[in-house]
């Protein structure tokens, strides 16, 4: 079938307004949106800018807004976004990150926030030459959070970042939760002062937009709320107040 890809083009380096450019392509209903993009750059217009690598939804390169919603171009089939007669598919870059060119955004602010939550293992105990023992139940507690591929879809969808660009954002909290809930890690102790800040977990208002778009089906909002409760409990135990509402 025939579809029109309406792609937001811009090249801030060389100036000019962002504009939508239309490309007609012949596709199969089961083709990925990324397949059509690849076809275009290889055969029609080499100047189109976007990132991609794995082509099956595991590397996090090609999150973009497809018909207004954050998705991975490699995990979106045309049948998911147009009906049998074809139609138009709009591709725009992620929000809340500066556009570099066309569908490419500067992910550095996103990764800075990622780095800020100590996204690495801080073991409770010294290794003994074998594995740290962990029960299946303990392992299950943080399974969800290990799935994140840092695609930034949630970061783009989050309405809080519209009004507060300093909010660390959903993905960074997911990354923190990955370690906070790992029985082998020092967990919340190590990270509470980072998360319990005015721009840490508290700005989240549970709009669920992140959860809706996450291509790894992570229940992000639930994790954020769990983290809030854990912080409150830890602070209460110390007889301290949280930074909520500050």
């Amino acid at each position, binding site marked *: 079938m025939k579809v029109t890809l309406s792609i937001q083009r811009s090249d801030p380096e060389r100036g000019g307004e962002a504009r939508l450019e239309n490309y007609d392509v012949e596709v199969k209903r089961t083709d990925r949106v990324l397949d059509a993009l690849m076809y275009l750059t290889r055969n029609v217009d080499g100047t189109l800018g976007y990132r991609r690598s794995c082509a099956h939804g595991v590397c996090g390169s090609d999150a973009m807004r497809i018909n207004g919603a954050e998705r991975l171009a490699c995990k979106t089939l045309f049948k998911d976004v147009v009906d049998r007669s074809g139609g138009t598919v709009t591709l725009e870059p992620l929000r809340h990150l500066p556009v570099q060119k066309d569908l490419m955004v500067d992910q550095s602010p996103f990764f800075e926030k990622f780095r800020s939550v100590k996204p*690495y293992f801080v073991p409770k105990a010294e290794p003994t030459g074998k594995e740290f023992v962990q029960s299946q139940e303990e392992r299950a507690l943080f*399974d969800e959070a290990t799935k994140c591929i840092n695609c930034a879809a949630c970061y783009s969808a989050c309405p809080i970042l519209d009004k507060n660009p300093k909010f660390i954002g959903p993905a960074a909290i997911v990354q923190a939760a990955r370690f906070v809930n790992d029985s082998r890690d020092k967990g919340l102790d190590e990270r509470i002062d980072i998360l319990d800040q005015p721009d840490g977990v508290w700005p989240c208002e549970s709009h669920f937009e992140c959860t809706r778009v996450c291509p790894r089906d992570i229940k992000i909002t639930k994790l954020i709320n769990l983290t809030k409760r854990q912080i409150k409990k830890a602070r209460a135990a110390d007889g301290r107040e949280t930074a909520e509402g500050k």
Partner: protein
Amino acid sequence: MVHEFDAVIVGAGGAGLYAALEASKTAKTAVLSKLYPQRSHTGAAQGGIGAALGNVEEDSPEWHAFDTVKGGDYLVDQTAAKVLAEEAVRAVYDLENRGLPFSRLENGTIAQRRFGGHTHHFGEGPVHRSCYAADRTGHMILQTLYQQCVKNDVTFYDEFHVVDILLEGTRAHGVVAFELKTGELHVFKAKAVLFATGGFGRMFKITSNALANTGDGPALLARAGIPMEDMEFYQFHPTGILGMGILITEGVRGEGGILKNREGERFMERYAPTMLDLAPRDMVSRAIMTEVMAGKGMRGDRKIDDYVMLDASHLGRETVEKKIPDIADFCRTYLDVDPAVDAMPVQPTAHYAMGGIPTDTHGRVDTGRAVYDGLYAAGEAACVSVHGANRLGTNSLVDLVVFGRRAGRHIAEYVRGASAPREFANATDASRAKIGGLREKKNGAHVGPIVQRMQEVMMTQVGVYRDQAEMDDAIKQIQELRDEFKEVGAQDTGDGFNAEVLNILELESLLDLSLLTAAGAANRTESRGAHSRRDFPDRDDDNWLKHTMATIDDDGVVIDYKDVDLGIWEPKPRVY
């Protein structure tokens, strides 16, 4: 711009990151990667990492080493295989101690599953050796190693695409890299350079590999005159998603999944009576193609792209969702199939390069005729050789951590004694001319038709089954495509974020490696491991128990050989 480091690591997958963690302990180290590190294809690995922990049942590194040698159809360097199997155990514990969230057994130790070709007591039956984190083992390894790099403040240059090596005789002095953001060419002077640029499955039409897996490291070293080892041994994984090549891990069969032909028959019973569906990949891929050619594929039309079914529905919903959740997700997304209910349509998919940059067990480039100073390789780009003619599942992830670590250590040691890298007056000239040339041909040819023909030729004529006439023709066609490539131009003339230039350079890499692969294959007149010829169906140890060393030059490919290290086990026929 010119930078100077003790060590430069090219590539931020499992191999590069592990080497960087080791080297950066004492040496001033930079990691250059064309992708953001977390986008590397190590993240796509699914099934597991092999190590004889013995958590489920008795196991030993010696059995693991033997399985590796036999699985590689005896083209494996045996001392290296022993190193691999012995250090695997420590490596897995080390990853766990760095936080890797392995799945767990009831007793809280690391979970292990069965995998193709891994046996107990030298082939008596399958063994639980693959340590896994559901079907996301590679994702967890990549994340864990990157997290450790963040923790240890390793220096990264993200989206720096290495385009050239600074080499003087047999000593490396650094690399040249193209910065995506600015289009600027940077010189990185270094006492030691490690290439860990990953695989190159994108030369084939159906592949499990990422679009970025274009073999830039091996290709640019080949262009610098360094021979590539055993390029004809390219592994086709038996179970790729029909038409797309996306991998369905062998772990599905490890958990009990079964391959069936159009008659519903479990055909592996006829090909590998003991190991059945868990025979090594080369054998299962051949079995599938043999069924297809006999008209027993699902369509029954005997065409090369016909397929068979992989059935896991009898495992039940709980096992599917717990043990292979991502596979279930891929099947639902791309096939509209729920593997807990229906079988999955599969076909062999180009998966893994056994061959590559020749190294010794410290990762040093070693061609058999010369050992290079300050030049290293590790991971899929390298050929140690621990995989010989056919890699066993779970052995690549082991290879990354074991030899990535060994290379990193050797580098740290080497740079302490090495003199400063030399000054190269015109270091960037060649790359500048090449890239400038692409931009001048603004109305030049598109890459599309060349990519398409290369992938089709390699898939159909240098695939699972091969013969002389087809391979000779493939060489001719690849040479034509290399000529056509000279007409390709970049429409994008900008400096910043010019991904088009890089895509063109990636195609150049794939064309060069396709030529080396086809030429090595056409030259080897026997069948061994993943290299199976209709016209020479048997293994020929008298003439061919040796590594191919292939060099590219203006007239084509020149072939030389290197001995196989056979110190431990005598070659035997390979039955499972």
